């Protein structure tokens, strides 16, 4: 053991000691209290209060009811931020599909990885769909489900190739853009729906005492749809999944191809 090792060991011990002293003395900041604060109490009491439906969101999932009902406008702006980010990416790589389209010598990874990817890809899609469709009942929701969905095309790009995605699955850049736009238009329509039906508020999920104008049913038969929440989740699922797939397609384009297409 050299002197350097000894100094390193002592220094690490001193560092650990100092960090633990800081943590014990409360230097990491304010520790949240174990009591539930009034705002949280409001959400927990009202989001699925079947006895007093004045403020309810018709969803047992408090987080989803906050995201798409009580604080819906905030999520709407978040979706717009993501929309602008993807649009920015598309603008940077502004190359038409026809110019990028050249038969590459695609071999991908080995047969073992390809077979495993073939087995895993359907599982990824099924899990993402279940997270989206159950988002108003269990933890999860549109954004998470969309991100899980985008893992599938990413695996295919890594194991097979970019052109496998574009030719065998017909999932081209333009098609991703169309799916994403459909999701975003659906969200915008759902936001404006109460306004068109004569209510005064945007994104109204369940009827309120002062505006009874429009109310989607909280359940269709045995399926609990929680008014607009299920539709918001599905639309966001499509928008986020297709948006991330679009970004992965653009990022995985070979550099020489891009340069050639732009004309460098």
């Amino acid at each position, binding site marked *: 053991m050299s002197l350097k090792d000894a100094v390193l060991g002592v220094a690490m011990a001193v560092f650990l000691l100092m960090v633990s002293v800081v943590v014990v003395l409360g230097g990491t900041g304010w520790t949240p209290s174990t009591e539930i604060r009034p705002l949280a109490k409001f959400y927990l009491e009202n989001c699925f209060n079947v006895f007093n439906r004045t403020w309810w969101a018709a969803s047992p999932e408090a987080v989803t009811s906050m995201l798409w009902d009580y604080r819906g406008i905030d999520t709407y702006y978040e979706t717009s931020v993501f929309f602008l980010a993807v649009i920015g990416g598309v603008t940077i790589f502004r190359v038409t599909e026809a110019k990028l389209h050249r038969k590459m010598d695609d071999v991908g990874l*080995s047969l073992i990885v390809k077979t495993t990817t073939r087995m*895993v890809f359907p*599982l990824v899609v099924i899990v993402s769909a279940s997270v989206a469709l159950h988002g108003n009942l269990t933890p999860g929701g549109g954004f998470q489900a969309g991100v899980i969905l985008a893992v599938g095309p990413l695996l295919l790009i890594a194991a097979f190739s970019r052109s496998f995605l574009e030719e065998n699955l017909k999932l081209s850049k333009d098609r991703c853009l169309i799916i994403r736009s459909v999701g975003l238009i659906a969200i915008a329509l759902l936001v404006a729906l109460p306004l068109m039906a004569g209510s005064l508020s945007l994104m109204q999920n369940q009827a309120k005492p002062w505006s009874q104008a429009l109310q989607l049913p909280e359940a269709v038969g045995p399926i609990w749809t929680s008014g607009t929440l299920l539709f918001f989740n599905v639309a966001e699922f499509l928008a986020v999944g297709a948006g991330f797939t679009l970004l992965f397609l653009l990022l995985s384009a070979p550099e020489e191809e891009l340069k050639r297409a732009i004309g460098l």
Partner: protein
Amino acid sequence: MWDLIESACLYVGLALAVTGALCDLLGALGLLRFPNFFVRLHAATVGIIGGAVYPLFGLTLMTIGCDFLGYWRWLFASGSFITAIIIAITAPAGSHALARGAHRSGVAVEPKLCDKLAEDRRGD
């Protein structure tokens, strides 16, 4: 009879969990002490298959054996069973891709007894 099956499930599950802990320990030691990338990768996969898949199968058996969980034990059991199978499918593919990529990009197999893959490639 059912009591006997339950306790058998519990003890087999516990044994699998202990095996998993041992495999994790051996995998960590191998990762530190083995001489080159490929055998270290082997130690890491001992840690994945032995240290994650075995304990998850053990957890399946253990939850079946815990009757105080009631109806919910089938939920836990099926969840850990499916997770174990998915890890058992995907982890070998990942380590295979790593090893293949490392060999193709010229990571030295040193010390070695033989390297058939390099001989094949030179033969092309």
